């Protein structure tokens, strides 16, 4: 396993997903893997740039890859946000535009020649770290908890790199390593509605509702993307009222779940910042520290 990665947190990990940032850093710290933040990184373009100009989308993402290349071209880049991951990865695939992109980057004395590999956090956890390494370090076994693994879209599609893009399973062995059970469902690779919750609220709420209804029976949902996380945790009240069922369920980022199972305390993985937690889960976590 590699002992260091470049790290591109992305904008949301500084604000609405700051607990994802904290948990990722704490988990990799515990695994004795260094995460070296890319100096001076900027926004990847999110979904807005592509909906405005394809060239702008490529250039915003490419700027970060060029910075990474200048900093440490032989390290892989770990990206926790699925939208950032897709945008950064697209630059590497889109070689037809490379010359134009480099014309733009040259204004800042940057250049893209052989950028480091762009890798999603889940890719690195499932293939580089691996479940065995997690299982070896369990300090708070989560036996009996049923965890619904939610992957969302953009870590799987359009680039199926580390998992099946329709029926993903890469989280399963990691969840099992904590002692928890994988909740059987078909919604793991469904769309959470993304930015519809801001611009087309009623449509977004319907997508969230379908996922939360299917999660009934699980003890918690895990995610690997800030947008999926926010959509699944922030609208539980609105969706429960619309559907006429109580759909409240804790939603944790995967590094939070793994970190907690490895004995990190709630504060260290940013747990107080989550929007959807339950008393039952908190009691279960507090009572599960192995002596």
């Amino acid at each position, binding site marked *: 396993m590699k002992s260091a990665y470049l790290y591109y947190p992305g904008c949301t990990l500084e*604000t609405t997903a700051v607990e994802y940032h904290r948990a990722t850093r704490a988990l990799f710290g515990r695994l004795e893997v260094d995460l070296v933040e890319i100096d001076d990184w*900027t926004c990847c373009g999110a979904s807005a740039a592509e*909906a*405005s100009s*394809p060239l702008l989308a490529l250039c915003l993402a490419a700027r970060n890859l060029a910075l990474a290349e200048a900093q440490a071209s032989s390290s892989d880049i770990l990206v926790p946000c699925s939208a950032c991951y897709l945008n950064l990865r697209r630059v590497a695939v889109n070689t037809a535009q490379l010359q134009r992109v480099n014309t733009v980057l040259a204004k800042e004395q940057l250049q893209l020649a052989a950028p480091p590999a762009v890798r999603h956090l889940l890719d690195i956890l499932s293939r580089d770290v691996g479940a065995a390494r997690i299982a070896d370090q369990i300090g708070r076994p989560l036996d009996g908890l049923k965890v619904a693994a939610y992957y969302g879209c953009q870590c799987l599609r359009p680039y199926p790199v580390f998992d099946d893009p329709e029926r993903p399973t890469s989280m399963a062995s990691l969840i099992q390593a904590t002692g928890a059970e994988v909740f059987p469902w078909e919604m793991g690779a469904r769309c959470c509605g993304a930015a519809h919750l801001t*611009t087309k609220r009623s449509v977004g709420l319907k997508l969230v509702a379908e996922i939360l209804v299917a999660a009934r029976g699980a003890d918690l949902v895990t995610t690997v993307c800030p947008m999926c996380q926010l959509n699944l945790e922030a609208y539980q009240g609105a969706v429960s009222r619309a559907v006429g069922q109580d759909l409240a369920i804790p939603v944790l980022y995967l590094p939070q779940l793994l970190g907690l199972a490895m004995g990190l305390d709630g504060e260290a993985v940013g747990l107080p910042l989550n929007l959807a937690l339950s008393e039952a889960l908190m009691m279960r976590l507090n009572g599960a520290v192995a002596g």
Partner: protein
Amino acid sequence: MMTRSATIGSVSTGHLSRMRTAVQACIQCGTCTGSCPNAFAMDRTPRQLWRLLLLGEMVEIFHSQTFILCSACYLCTLRCPRGLPLTELMAGLKAEAAKRGIGCHRSSSLFYDSFLANVRRHGRVREMALMTRYFTRLGRLGPPLANMGLGRRLMRKGKLKPSWPQKSSAKLDQLFACVAALEAEADGARES
């Protein structure tokens, strides 16, 4: 119809023509529609949209909600038996609609525009400044009211901070300007 189509332009040149070429191989199988999580809310299905593009019916396309409702889940792109870049084309239509200032897509276009203005100014997204600006430009009370509760919850957690006027870092100004110049050049070359 004349006035509506006047702002929309013809499919025979430029970006629209390239998009039409990109769906030339569509066999109208409807796998895209069957895969789309948002199809239930669309006035035209994705399959119908691609047919309209092939026929050059740009007025119908730009006044439908279909492309605006694409949430970029990439299922259609993954499953298309012809391997067509359908999600990318949906984004392309969003960009073309925004460029033409088509009224029925104003709220989405304004969001993208506010987002990019925010990134251009600060380098990284400043969410409070972004949402404040977006809702102000939108000029309707419904959306900010619907989001106020969440905004408060996020502020209580310290994840969102009240937005004071901030100095622009101007870090990305050059990049945005250079992209705009390259695109103007390319558009000019296509027209002449």
